[in-house]
């Protein structure tokens, strides 16, 4: 077992973990943050996408010990005081989710895409989401949601 200190959604956690413990199971089973889902075992589907030090990462392909000292953001941190984040709101308004299983990963990937880029074209979004699979929506409305949120998050009205 190894001792790690990982800040998750602003809260620092000191924990003992098995060296082979995957980050996603550390989040889900040790911290009870079950909003991050697991959809595959080959780093393909992206359901487990979270932010590590602000950049999107697939938490099924990182070990918890790799994140010693890191800051992690999961889907649970996005809504504030009961109000959805603009990206969550955009997913809701454009019907960009059906079963919802890929959604937390899709939103975290979308968030990094918006934060790391300037204006996003439809092509930018489609290419940027290549690592996240959805089987329900055909992506049409997911692309729309990210476009909508990207506009809102950049607009001067929002500080």
């Amino acid at each position, binding site marked *: 077992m190894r001792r790690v200190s990982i800040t998750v959604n602003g809260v620092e956690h000191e924990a003992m973990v*098995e060296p*082979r413990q995957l980050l996603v*199971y550390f989040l*889900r*089973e040790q911290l009870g*943050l*079950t*909003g*991050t*889902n*697991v*959809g*595959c*075992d*080959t*780093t*393909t*589907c992206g*359901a487990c996408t979270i932010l590590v030090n602000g950049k999107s990462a697939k938490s099924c392909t990182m070990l918890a010990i790799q994140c010693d000292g890191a800051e992690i953001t*999961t*889907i*649970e941190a*996005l*809504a504030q005081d009961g109000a*959805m984040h603009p990206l*969550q709101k955009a*997913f*809701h*308004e454009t*019907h960009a*989710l*059906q*079963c*919802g*299983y*890929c*959604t*937390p990963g899709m*939103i975290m990937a979308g968030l990094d895409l918006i934060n790391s880029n300037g204006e996003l074209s*439809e092509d930018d*979004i*489609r*290419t940027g*989401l*290549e*690592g*996240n*699979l*959805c*089987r*329900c*929506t*055909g*992506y*049409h*409305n*997911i*692309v729309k949601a990210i476009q909508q949120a990207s506009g809102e998050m950049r607009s001067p009205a929002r500080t």
Partner: protein
Amino acid sequence: MAQVAEKAQKYVGGGVLRKEDPELLTGRAQYIDDISMPGMLWIAIVRSPLAHATINSVDTSQASGMPGVKGVYSGADLAGEWADGLPCAWPVTEDIKLPKHWPVAKDKVRHAGDPVAVVVAETRAQAVDATEAVEVDYEPLDVVVDMEAALAPGATKVHDDFDDNSCYVWNLDVGDVDDVFNNAPVVVKERYRHPRLIPNAIEPRGVVCQPNIPQGEFIVYSATQVPHILKTMLALTVGVAEQKVRVIAPDVGGGFGSKLNVYAEEAICLAIGRKLGVPVKWIEERSEGYLATIHGRDVVQDMEVAADENGKVTGFRANLHADMGAYLQLVTPGIPILGAFLYHGVYDCQAYSFTCTGVFTNKTPTDAYRGAGRPEATYAVERIMDALARKVGKDPVELRRLNFLEPFDEAREVITGLSFDSGNYGVSLDKALENFGYDDMRAEQKRRRDSGDAKQLGIGVSTYIEMCGLAPSQVLASLRYAAGGWDAATIRCHPTGKVTAITGTAPHGQGHVTSWSQIVADELGVPFEDVEVLHGDTAISPLGMDTYGSRSLSVGGVALHYAARKIVTKAKTIAAHELEVAEEDLEYDSGTFSVKGAPDKSKTVAEVAFSAWTAHNLPEGTEPGLEETHVFDPPNFTFPSGAHLCAVEVDTETGLTRVVKYVAVDDCGKIINSAIVEGQVHGGIAQGIAEAMYEEAVYDDNGVLMTSSMANYRVPSAAELPNFETDRTETPSTTNPLGVKGIGEAGTIASPPAVVNATIDALAPFGIDHIDKPVTPERVWAALQNAGGGSVEGRGTDTTAAGSGVGSADTPGGDA
């Protein structure tokens, strides 16, 4: 026939935002892997790496001593746990071969992934670790992978009990088929292959069993589309009294047919929970699921059309081979039969023949995958219509118009004996052509052809029909399906005016909570927010037949409508009594009963619900309370239809093919929620494009699944797919009073032939008139190389030659 209500509605028809979303968006959903209990143990399963072998022995001794391990059980150890094998509920013929299918194999394994032992341990990792230490001594046997090889005399048998690997032969002939085909001036025959598909719901399967030993009760949580069917079948398989089993489907992350089943792991968790008396949990790993969860399609069709010189069709003849895999799962044999009546599409004909041979092979069982039988039918019909158009030198659109069934708004019997509920096929096609800009696209295509552009444009059309709203119970009986096709709903009006609606459907992404709230809110005149929809728990919703086959709205939603009508009927009696008028003197509109001519004298449903609860002043003979249940058995199927148009761009230098424009016009009758309908169409089209262009499960000759994980089976991402332009026409169904037809599968049914027809159309200048799904760059490129600049021979008859590999979609050295 039912009349469709034509009154103003507040919620129905609009794109009301979904009630389901907030929890799903914020990480508060509860999927199966989010369920955890004190004292819970983990189950992992040892699976055969071989496709066919005798089990000589299973040595569990080393595994049993590993850290955290609480038990290791072979198939022989668990033999006493089963009251019966896993169920097949659809023995399609009287003489079908029905193999025993034990949840854990005892003496033989018949496909890679067949369970051979079960490990129980304190943690997920400990359970998986111990599976590695279970030693199984296998005696490998010959493997049959290809259907044609499986049917050859002397082939290795998948099941020793039977004479051969033919599972069943099912046939439907109408009219003088031989006469029509022998005397037709034009006959076109082609062979179409439908690769095996892996459903890939993004949530893997999983089960938690929570036993309550003193009471002899078991709660089984499962990521399932069919909690009701599962409850009954688990009781029979594991030998638990049905009233002691409660099945709960928590939030379920997609299904597409793959969770419409009764799986070994569900039986195993119940049996182990009973054996050990503590909660147990199994969560599928994705690569494990590729072997353990059902596959879809894997059908080969020899399709023929007979016509006159002008292209007017006189007959369709389809001969199918359908790969069952190694066992029959819940509805495996019935899947091709769901398409058996649709091999004439939306076209008129005089003769019809459908034959399907089910074949056992050493592969994962096939079963329902989005569309189930109907995509196969539509693909064959729409491909052969294009082939016929080429043969008689007509535009494929004109050929379709020439052959459409005339428009009808009362149910009409067609050649197969089915009664199509309503249809107007030309209208959807016209709208699709307009939205697509058909003439402009053809002009652009001509420009590229004339200039010899490296990127050629192809245009594909698909005018489809599907049969859904499964299903009238008596029709199911005639098809030898073991259960009914009804569904149920209960509406409970609380004394405070709030409403609970309980449904027998089991949503897993379809948004029933929202759509059902819209229906109830409009019927009872209550706010949308005041309706709570409950589902997916057999203790709360004891009656139901679950969600599959685009049935939920047109059966379960209609049951809800009727339950609401019963509420209104009872409430009217109470309102009339309280207002001291005759019932005939009351008018009902949007939740309010008012006295004709004296609208200020009125009662709302909410007020009546309170009166019904206090029961202080009820009319003679009226029971207190305001709660009604309705069970709806549909009198007929519903028949959604539409026209899809696709444009692809083929890079003739690399074979890379991309969809550049996709237009869909669907007619699913009346709609409840426009956003949800559109979403279903988007997802369906994407899945159909995936089938047409990307996805294929490939086995090697030893029965090893080569596409063994998401890393090498290509589920397309946003980067591969286009936007979709969707539109609707609305021809109300005559099967039900809501006029609804269903939309869950339409996109998947319509799109594969549109895409493949477009690809072939793009390659037409090279003399290419056939290419199999999926139209990968490799296949397209090879077809172009073989065509050698336009001298290729027609492949229509070549592909049906013996030895071309009836069971393998990707025959080595063939095709492409």
